[in-house]
């Protein structure tokens, strides 16, 4: 029976990156109705920018900040320039548009950096402490800490702040909100900013914890979306719970024989399970 504790620790850190990404997806969806398939790709871009800065001799401690900043700018640019042009189309079109955005980023990163195996190193990798008999790097601790704190901040923001209220109004009914004087364009923009920041942070962390690969990081959007599915794209607590479950499950399967190499199909199983659960009572909505 393999010792699962180290995998639990790494699983929690991994799950935290999924939490960050998933929260970004749900907040953006609730404010703008767009399922952002490019969340992972934007994160990957942040990671690559960080890595490039360090490669060229830049300060390690600030490289991640620049990466996240770039991710935020790119995300906002998409939200302002492209998403606004698709506002009147149906949700599928808007989601597929983010998919094309992901393709563009994927090609761009492949062109500039290629798929050579790389690892992003953060200064906190070398600092560590001991917990439950396992060595925990500061990076992992920060990841987990961020996962918890960011979720709390976002939930407080949505429920208690003025802008949070406006975002919830937008999610409920966009046209009506506009008529009520909610600055739709601005709130929308802020949603894309939040999404970009969360994408950037989770991308940088994931590139550190696993590997810096355009393909791998882009498709890390899959576990995040699976978590969002579990939360029905509405409930943040459920989304967070889902992301934690997926991340921990994935990590705990690593040492298991036979199934281990296929653990990356975990989010898929969770998402299908969630969908089947949602359908247990047939509901016909008459519009």
């Amino acid at each position, binding site marked *: 029976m393999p010792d699962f504790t180290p995998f639990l620790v790494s699983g929690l850190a991994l799950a935290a990156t999924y939490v960050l990404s998933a929260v970004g997806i749900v907040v953006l969806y609730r404010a703008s109705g767009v*399922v952002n*398939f490019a969340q992972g790709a934007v994160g990957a871009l942040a990671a690559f920018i960080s890595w490039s800065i360090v490669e060229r001799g830049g300060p390690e401690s600030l490289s991640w900040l620049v990466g996240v900043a770039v991710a935020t700018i790119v995300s906002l640019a998409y939200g302002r320039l*492209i998403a606004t*042009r*698709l506002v009147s*189309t*149906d*949700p*599928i*079109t808007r*989601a*597929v*548009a983010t*998919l*094309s*955005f*992901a*393709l*563009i*980023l*994927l*090609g*761009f990163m*492949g*062109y500039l950096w290629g798929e050579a195996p790389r690892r992003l190193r953060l200064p906190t990798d070398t600092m560590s402490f001991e917990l439950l008999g396992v060595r925990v790097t500061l990076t992992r601790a920060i990841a987990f800490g961020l996962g918890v704190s960011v979720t709390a901040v976002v939930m407080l923001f949505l429920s208690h702040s003025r802008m949070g209220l406006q975002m919830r109004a937008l999610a409920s009914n966009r046209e009506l909100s506009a008529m009520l004087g909610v600055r739709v364009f601005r709130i929308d923009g802020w949603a894309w900013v939040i999404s970009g920041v969360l994408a950037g942070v989770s991308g940088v962390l994931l590139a550190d914890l696993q590997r810096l690969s355009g*393909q791998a990081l*882009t*498709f890390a959007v*899959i576990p995040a*979306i*699976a978590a969002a*599915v579990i939360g029905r794209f509405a409930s943040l607590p459920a989304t967070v719970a889902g992301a934690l479950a997926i991340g921990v499950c994935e990590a705990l399967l690593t040492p298991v024989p036979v199934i281990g*190499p*296929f653990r*990356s*199909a975990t*989010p*898929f199983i969770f*998402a*299908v399970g969630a*969908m*089947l659960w*949602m*359908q247990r009572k047939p509901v016909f909505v*008459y*519009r």
Partner: protein
Amino acid sequence: MTDRSLEGVSLAVSSRLPFREIALCAGALAALYFLPSFLTGYWLRVLISVAALVVASLSVSVLFAQLGMVSLAQFGLLGVGGWFALRISHGMGAPFELALLTGGAAAALVGLVVGLPALRMRGLYLAIITLMMAGAIQVLISAFGFPDGGAGILGKSTGARVMMARPFLAQGDPAYFRYAVVIAALCYLLVLAHVRGRPGRAWAMIRRGEVCALAGGVHIVAYKVWAFALAGFLAGIAGGLLAGGVGQLDGSAFPASQSIMLFALTIVGGAYSSFGPIIAGLLLRAFPALLNELHVDGNIATMVFGVGLLHALMTAPQGIAGQLGDAFRAVGKFFKGNGGTAA
């Protein structure tokens, strides 16, 4: 999605035979018959792959044009079909046609089993689940690889890799190309039979609205399942064709991004037109080959395709084929002058 299905295509219009379109198709097929004499070995093999990809793109376009359904897993299902075709061909020495059909059936089944939970829900969930399906297939295929002559479930050979046995009538490349074109044409006819028949009418009612379909007696989920099974079948056939053309399939050639590209290019080519899948097949296979010849990085193609899809979504949902169709009609009107009645 607005009801713009099959715009610019003569498929579902009248009960009279569309003689002009039949003549055009016959002409095109005849031209394709003679094409191999003009091509080098490399480009002939590229076009064989194009034929397979046209069928794959057709599977994407049937779902999208008929029901507005987005499947991001069709290239993965092509891999599934290819796997079964290879396994049956190597393991049982089965004739090529049987291997092809088995691949089609297997892909249809796999697609259905996985997609079924999402078929009852909003379209967005189908896009999500098929994306995940593509990811899962990627993991499985890169781990297991493709059968190449060995024994055991996975059929991996310990010695030399065996090429897939080609059909009896089509051993050489030129013959196989013509064979592939015939299969592609048959796939088109299969889709046509569906669209002009009962399923096509039911799909049209579903597209018009759930209320319309239900009041008219259409079992919505059942017909969505039928469409998804058809799409899976076509993707599987494409996989078998590809396997036969190249001789073997590469386990690393089925990343989830390929399924996304297939979808993207089908939209860019024109999901609502018969020409769309042909344009998509050419773009997916011939365009990167061309870039290769010109020593340009393949990632440029990915970026171009992404931009193309974005552009198509924002401005021209009928895609290149639709825009070409519009251009032809505009030219036609110009030559007919202003004397004709409005269309």
